[in-house]
């Protein structure tokens, strides 16, 4: 029985081998080769120069992940407490933006945040800019929103928030209600029920949410290009430049990707270890 079923995994194993394992092997091989195909470590020697870019990317991705968690957790929690009809509608609303193309969505934010964009025109109309100028004695024509790190974080939060909400929601909605009742029976107030029962039990959802937001955020290049104005490179931009920029250097690009992958894997591993510890503590 078990053997028969395991045959069904063959297509996925082939898929993984071709599109996950093989590319990773290629990245590793390229990262350690020079332009003429020999072995070299020189691609990694340059990594120190890019430390600033690494720090900036991880910082922005962390901020975006934290904001997603702060917004996403309460939304998931409240959603799971409502009736099935509300849940269905809320789910559609959360998924709705994802039916549109990612680049198009981000591009729209550009026209919203521009100096002469929709938001600034609105602020102008309702006199917010004039008010600000009066209060602070400034002479602004518009609020500078586009081409800032804030805009990049906004783009990340907007695009990846559903990836935080969905896993948390699917864990919370399946929580065994009798555990909560038992906690209440034993005299826990709502704060304690949440802190000592619901939160620890929803941790797996939180962890996968964090992973699913953090990883694409740290490697994005489209968002920083469109909303960040391209004045400060992120890791994704840096890697893209090695493949599509003036000096074609896929070896260096592969090396940067590899270092980024390793850092991400280490972060995830540490986080999951921490998560496991928490879960066991709860069990005990």
């Amino acid at each position: 029985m078990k053997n028969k079923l395991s045959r069904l995994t063959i297509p996925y194993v082939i898929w993984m081998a071709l599109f996950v394992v093989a590319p990773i092997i290629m990245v590793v091989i390229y990262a350690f080769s020079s332009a003429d195909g020999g072995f070299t470590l020189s691609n990694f020697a340059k990594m120190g120069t890019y430390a600033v870019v690494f720090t900036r990317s991880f910082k922005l991705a962390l901020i975006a992940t934290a904001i997603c968690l702060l917004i996403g957790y309460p939304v998931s929690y409240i959603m799971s407490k409502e009736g099935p009809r509300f849940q269905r509608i809320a789910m559609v609303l959360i998924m709705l933006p994802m039916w549109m193309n990612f680049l198009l969505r981000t591009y729209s934010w550009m026209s919203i945040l521009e100096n002469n964009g929709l938001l600034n025109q609105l602020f102008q109309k309702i006199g917010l800019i004039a008010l600000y100028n009066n209060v602070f004695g400034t002479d602004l024509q518009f609020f500078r929103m586009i081409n800032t790190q804030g805009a990049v974080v906004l783009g990340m939060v907007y695009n990846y928030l559903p990836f935080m909400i969905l896993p948390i929601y699917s864990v919370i909605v399946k929580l065994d209600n009798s555990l909560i009742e038992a906690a209440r029976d034993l005299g826990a107030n709502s704060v304690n029920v949440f802190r000592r029962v619901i939160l620890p039990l929803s941790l797996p959802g939180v962890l996968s949410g964090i992973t699913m937001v953090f990883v694409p955020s740290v490697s994005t290049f489209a968002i920083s290009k469109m909303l960040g104005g391209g004045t400060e490179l992120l890791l994704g931009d840096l890697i893209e430049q090695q493949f599509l920029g003036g000096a074609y250097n896929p070896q260096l690009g592969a090396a940067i990707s590899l270092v980024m992958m390793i850092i991400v894997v280490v972060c995830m591993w540490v986080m999951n270890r921490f998560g496991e510890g928490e879960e066991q503590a709860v069990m005990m």
Partner: protein
Amino acid sequence: MKKTLALAMMMVTILTLTACGGSSGGSKDRVVNVCSWGEYIDESLIDQFEDETGIKVNYQTAESNEALYSLLKTGAGDYDVIVPSDYMIGRLIAEDMLAELNYDNIPNYAKIDSRYKNLSYDPDNKYTVPYTWGTLGIIYNTSMVDEEITSWDAMFDEKYAGQVLMIRNSRDALAAALLDLGYDINTTDEAQIREAYELLSTAKNNGVYQAFVMDEIFQKMEGGNAAIAMYYAGDYLTMLETNEDLAYVVPDEGSNWFVDAMCVLKNAQHKDEAEAWINFIAGTDANLANMDYIWYASPNAEALEQYPAYYEETYGEPLDQETFEIMAAPADVLDRCTLYENLPAGTLTLYNDLWTELGI
């Protein structure tokens, strides 16, 4: 060790590529695989060619010369005809990636103005047939800038802090700085290139640049979100259709003019079909249709001469002379412009390193 590594790399590459499914089509049907830029052809020409010749056209696009180069290098692109720009053609010829053309199969080559033949990237004109040409210049919004801009200084002037869009392309950005300093845009002198970089980097640190853009420029200039930018003449005319406050100038210090030309790859599977396509596109009718669609000037002397009349016939109003001269720069403007040449590997690396440094 070296060999095993190279072999392993090749194996993995082939494995992945074949997995991606590169079907090259049956031998019976005549096919030509073309790779060009986005929004760079009147697409009805493709149908017309297919009807006339029975050759099926697989028309694909690449994002930039560098992206095209990367596709060719990895072997991911299975093209016959490509349309790179001058400096990239120089590089492809130097790396022996292009096939010599048989001009007997391309009679329309005779209609190409001699100004666009035997240029520096292909001095004996053995590999290329020009597709379009144009200039690089400054685009500015006359309702936001009080003076008339005539110099590259405007791209580095603190007076316009936060209002300038710099081009996100190391070659063009450094060319603007080199021109402003009075240097040659093809210089390989490291000191001059570093000086140009300093100019660019100082301006960036002083907050002159609102952003570094490529295609985003359309939305930003059309919407009045930035006052000054540098871009290509043909695209300026597209922006002008939406925002008539915009002006275009080829600065006094000179600028870059570019030629995009059709070439056939050395390993092309359909060389005859490729030459048939090139001949068709080089023809006067095709050039007129293309010019009207993409606003880039034609190298076909006949087509360029006939275009104002063609425009008047199509739209029922005369073509504005000023517009025409921006599209097809007159001789006195072209005389102060220079073509990009393929830079030696060391200089390319310097460009890339400086460009990355600018972003850090």
